[in-house]
């Protein structure tokens, strides 16, 4: 479907139109009765600026852009109207075709007569609109100067002033009541929109439409995910996660193998840790636990002089040598049973003072029975 495309001036006008004043200082319908060929600067004088500031970028400084003439406006209005009619007609025609049975594919295809006639009619309307607009603009330009003595006369001036005053009053009233009207319209639309939307959505598959028409990748690329994450309560999310199951699936040994433990250890503030420890208390507890004074006492007692230790060790060796010799002499083959009441060397563990001494096996007192 072709949108109505005008020349450069027309295209510029399309963008200028929306920039109209609705403030109370706007002249009442001034643009409608504006002179056909206004001089530069007139727009400022009348408090009406129909130009888009962006459009003046390419223009020489000091030369304000020309406002559209009424003829151009009319022409543009006709184009828009014709375009709208054409678009509507096309939509209706398409809908009508959709409701009809599909055409026979083997039938000879020719130009659609409906499309042909409607296109011709629309083109004719467009041409007529252009002609009328040009003619009316030319007519106004031609007639205005000779009639200026009439229009400048008192009765016309009075009527014009009166009309201006009335229009201003009406405009002010509109300005006052506009909020109410807007509200009323908004509420009406608000009442109506949901049901219309529901009715439309019932016949549409939004998901399909989005998938078909929307470039989701572009949208996702434009999303500021950090900002989204800032708003997410990650703690609540994590609470829902079964971390134990996840951890069970992780090979922690492999993770640990990849850890640089030395680097971690270098970052640990060992001194701070030690400061937190009650070393004196721990030392005291250890000393009490192992009974250090007792150890010192027993070790100094045990660690007799080198001479005594040597004497003892040598006598033990002599003991064994004599025992072996005697055993050999009396043909004893069994080993001596020198385990005495008490314990084997590996089980040395003094009990506390005053504790009842454990009894030993009864065989110890049986003498030479074996």
């Amino acid at each position, binding site marked *: 479907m072709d949108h109505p495309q005008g020349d450069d001036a027309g295209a510029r006008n399309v963008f200028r139109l929306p920039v109209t004043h609705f403030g109370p200082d706007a002249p009442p319908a001034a643009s409608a009765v504006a002179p056909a060929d206004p001089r530069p600067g007139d727009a400022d004088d009348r408090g009406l600026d129909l130009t888009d500031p962006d459009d003046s970028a390419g223009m020489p400084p000091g030369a304000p852009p020309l406002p559209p003439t009424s003829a151009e406006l009319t022409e543009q209005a006709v184009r828009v109207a014709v375009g709208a009619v054409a678009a509507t007609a096309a939509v209706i025609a398409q809908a009508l075709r959709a409701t009809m049975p599909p055409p026979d594919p083997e039938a000879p295809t020719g130009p659609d007569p409906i499309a042909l006639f409607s296109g011709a009619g629309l083109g004719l309307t467009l041409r007529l609109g252009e002609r009328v607009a040009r003619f009316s603009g030319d007519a106004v330009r031609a007639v205005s100067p000779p009639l200026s003595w009439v229009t400048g006369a008192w009765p016309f001036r009075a009527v014009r002033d009166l009309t201006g005053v009335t229009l201003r009053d009406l405009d002010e009233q509109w300005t006052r009541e506009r909020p109410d009207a807007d509200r009323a319209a908004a509420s009406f639309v608000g009442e109506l929109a949901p049901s219309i939307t529901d009715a439309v959505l019932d016949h549409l598959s939004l998901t399909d439409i989005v998938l078909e028409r929307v470039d989701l990748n572009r949208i996702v690329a434009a999303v500021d995910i950090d900002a989204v994450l800032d708003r997410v309560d990650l703690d609540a999310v994590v609470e829902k996660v079964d971390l134990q199951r996840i951890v069970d699936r992780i090979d922690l040994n492999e993770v640990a193998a990849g850890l640089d433990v030395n680097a971690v250890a270098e970052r640990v503030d060992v001194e701070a840790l030690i400061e937190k420890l009650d070393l004196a208390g721990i030392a005291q507890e250890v000393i009490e636990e192992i009974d250090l004074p007792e150890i010192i006492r027993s070790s100094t007692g045990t660690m007799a002089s080198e001479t005594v230790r040597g004497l003892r060790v040598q006598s033990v060796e002599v003991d064994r040598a004599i025992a072996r010799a005697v055993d050999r002499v009396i043909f004893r083959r069994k080993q001596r049973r020198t385990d*005495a009441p008490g314990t084997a060397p590996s089980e040395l563990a003094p009990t506390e003072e005053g504790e009842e001494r454990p009894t030993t096996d009864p065989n110890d007192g049986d003498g030479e029975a074996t």
Partner: protein
Amino acid sequence: VSAVDERPARPRRNPPQTIPSEARAFQGQRAGIASRVVANSIDFGLLVATLAALYLGVVAILFLLRQESFRFPSPSIQAAFAIGSLLLLLYFTASWTGTGRTYGDVVMGLRVVNLRGDRMSLPGALLRAFLCVTFPIGLFWAAISRQNRSVQDLLMRTSVIYDWQITGGPAAQPSRSAPA
């Protein structure tokens, strides 16, 4: 019920070993004849020294009492033997009931324990001391005995063990299972 079971819930940890490593192999085992002979020899030397000192003391007292008629006393061998035996009896008894070791035992790292591994009671120590004094030759049975026991040990069911630990009393260890 063993005394071990009656310990408090948090038993005290064993202190580190204070016995020299070379002695740990035979700590708590019955001592052989050589060590015991050496220990008894030391004790005998001690007895002789004590007797000498005693004699000198008596001499000094006699000299002070009757200086003009002073003569060195010459006690009979029987009297000396009797006094020595008595001294030895007392010395053994006191040592075995006290620390379980005479001075000779201390030097040699020995200790006398009863059949429970404990220090001897006074009657037991007295009887054993009597046996040792009257029948010292019985000591040498320890060389022949498979359990390194003298005649006195067999009669009194005692043992003489290597024990280099000077404190904590004899055989201050928990009970063991039956020997192999």
